[in-house]
């Protein structure tokens, strides 16, 4: 098992997609003041990360990247909702802060479930799953091609930017709009030229307009069905039963 990338999942991508969507629907279906009821749902990303040995640093990095924006919008909640909902020992907590924390938890859950998906399964396998779930073929092919050429074109952009920076006397210079427009224009022309060459390469190998996807998916009700059913049931349980309440009730009663 590669510690830097973890183990890949053998679960059918359709089951992964369904579970992910069920998860996000469950998370977002809670009322805005829910905090504790969201916590059992952390089991999903935690269990998946642990089971597949996913790199925590990678996960954390991506989560941290998107958090600031959500926090910014969420911080308006305490500003606008000042109604106190909890008072203990002179300290009062407003509804706004409660919903803010709820927003933070929701982000963590939703973001991690999406990142999980691509860490646990190769992207083109996820695309294959989409195709089997009736997503239009042209979009699936588009996703695969985009993914294939993403790094290549980003590399071209990076080299262009570096070439620009190396020709400026300042350290970490800014790119003016006119220069950026030319750079983007060149990138675009190179992209179009590359697309033409790829098209040629496809033609000489007999391309007639149809991409024939060769890899079959096999959905095993034993493995994939139980994966989806088990998590689905857990999500439903968390949604309708106050698990943390029961837990705390049980502990506090002692």
């Amino acid at each position: 098992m590669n510690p830097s990338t973890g183990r890949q999942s053998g679960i059918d991508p359709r089951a992964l997609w369904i579970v992910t969507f069920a998860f996000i629907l469950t998370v977002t279906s809670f009322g805005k003041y829910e905090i504790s009821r969201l916590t059992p749902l952390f089991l999903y990303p935690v269990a998946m990360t642990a089971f597949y040995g996913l790199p925590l640093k990678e996960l954390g990095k991506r989560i941290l990247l998107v958090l600031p924006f959500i926090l910014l919008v969420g911080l308006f909640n305490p500003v606008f909702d000042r109604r106190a909902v909890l008072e203990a020992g002179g300290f009062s907590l407003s509804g706004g802060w409660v919903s803010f924390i709820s927003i933070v938890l929701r982000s963590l859950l939703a973001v991690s479930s999406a990142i999980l998906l691509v860490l646990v399964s190769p992207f083109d396998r996820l695309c294959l799953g989409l195709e089997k779930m009736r997503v239009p073929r042209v979009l699936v092919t588009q996703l695969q091609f985009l993914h294939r050429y993403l790094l290549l074109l980003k590399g071209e952009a990076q080299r262009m930017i570096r070439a620009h920076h190396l020709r400026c006397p300042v350290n970490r210079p800014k790119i003016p709009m006119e220069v950026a427009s030319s750079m983007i224009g060149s990138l675009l022309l190179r992209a179009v030229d590359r697309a033409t060459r790829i098209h040629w390469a496809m033609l000489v190998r007999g391309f007639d307009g149809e991409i024939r996807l060769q890899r079959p998916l096999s959905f095993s009700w034993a493995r994939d069905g139980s994966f989806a059913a088990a998590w689905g049931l857990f999500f439903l349980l968390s949604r309708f039963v106050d698990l943390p309440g029961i837990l705390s009730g049980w502990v506090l009663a002692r």
Partner: protein
Amino acid sequence: MHMADALLSPMVGGTMWAVTAGLTAYSARKLKESPDESRVPLMGVLGAFIFASQMINFSIPATGSSGHLGGGMILAVLLGPYAAFLVLASVLVVQALFFADGGLLALGCNIFNMAFFPCFLAYPFIYRKIAGQKPSQSKIFLAAVLAAVVGLQLGAFSVVVETRVSGISELPFGTFLLLMQPIHLAIGIVEGIVTAAVVLFVWKARPELFAPASGGVAALAGGVPMKKVLAGLALASVLTGGILSWFASSYPDGLEWSMAKTSGSEGLETPEDGLHGALSALQGKLAFLPDYGFRKPGGDEAPPEQPGEAVSWPAVDPGTTLSGLVGGGMTLLLAGLAGLVIKRGSSKRA
């Protein structure tokens, strides 16, 4: 600006997903009608190009901040509305999965906000109308800026509506609008300028990329049938109007505020019949739906008494909250523990 799962309710998210799915199927079908196998690699590479071009951060004069190109308008100019829509959709999917930008439920909203408006409204009705026939440098600039501004304004407005109707964020409608629209006006102007500059760059270097008669790249930049788009617009406005009036019945505060500012009148007249009445009735029936929060087993929340009455936010009981916090903390600990156990077990196996 991307819509996020954390601020979204399943109702809004699901609705927008349905709309987006419909648009996607429609675009795919339109592309099938005029097959062009050179389009497959071109769309793919241009999708990758969007990501690459967004790495080029340029400084915006007089503001000291930096920005990057969205790229929707350029795609529409090169590929036509249907292919551009699908390319933008694919870009947003990859952003949602790999860069956690937005979220998978919000993806439906994001594709609508950021792909529908530029490709199906701004491009055919603004850009092509101004710069379509006999384009000149000034026409292209005007067309690009106007199209970008309108597209982004509509997109930003949609984000505000979607956020407000979801009800997770406390940001009042008016305040949010006041934050979003001016910022996106500025972004739109910059986007339009850079788009125009890039279009001109490409036009000077390779004019054949835009020639419709050549049957090449721009062969699909054909007109979008007026009737269909008007129908789509009508549907969108019904949805938006319906959602707005639905929300208006519950949140007279925010809307009243901006109403008062704009029209000088205090409140909204709420017609009992017609669309509003029907929606209020619907709202009453759907009051169990998630964006108002499921009722807790203890019945802490006041259910709506009758259709048409404003639904109050779930009252939060402090007692429940405290025990909830304790239970919540312990659950988190348990989840973490479970994770450690699973990890140990799975690494033994590996």
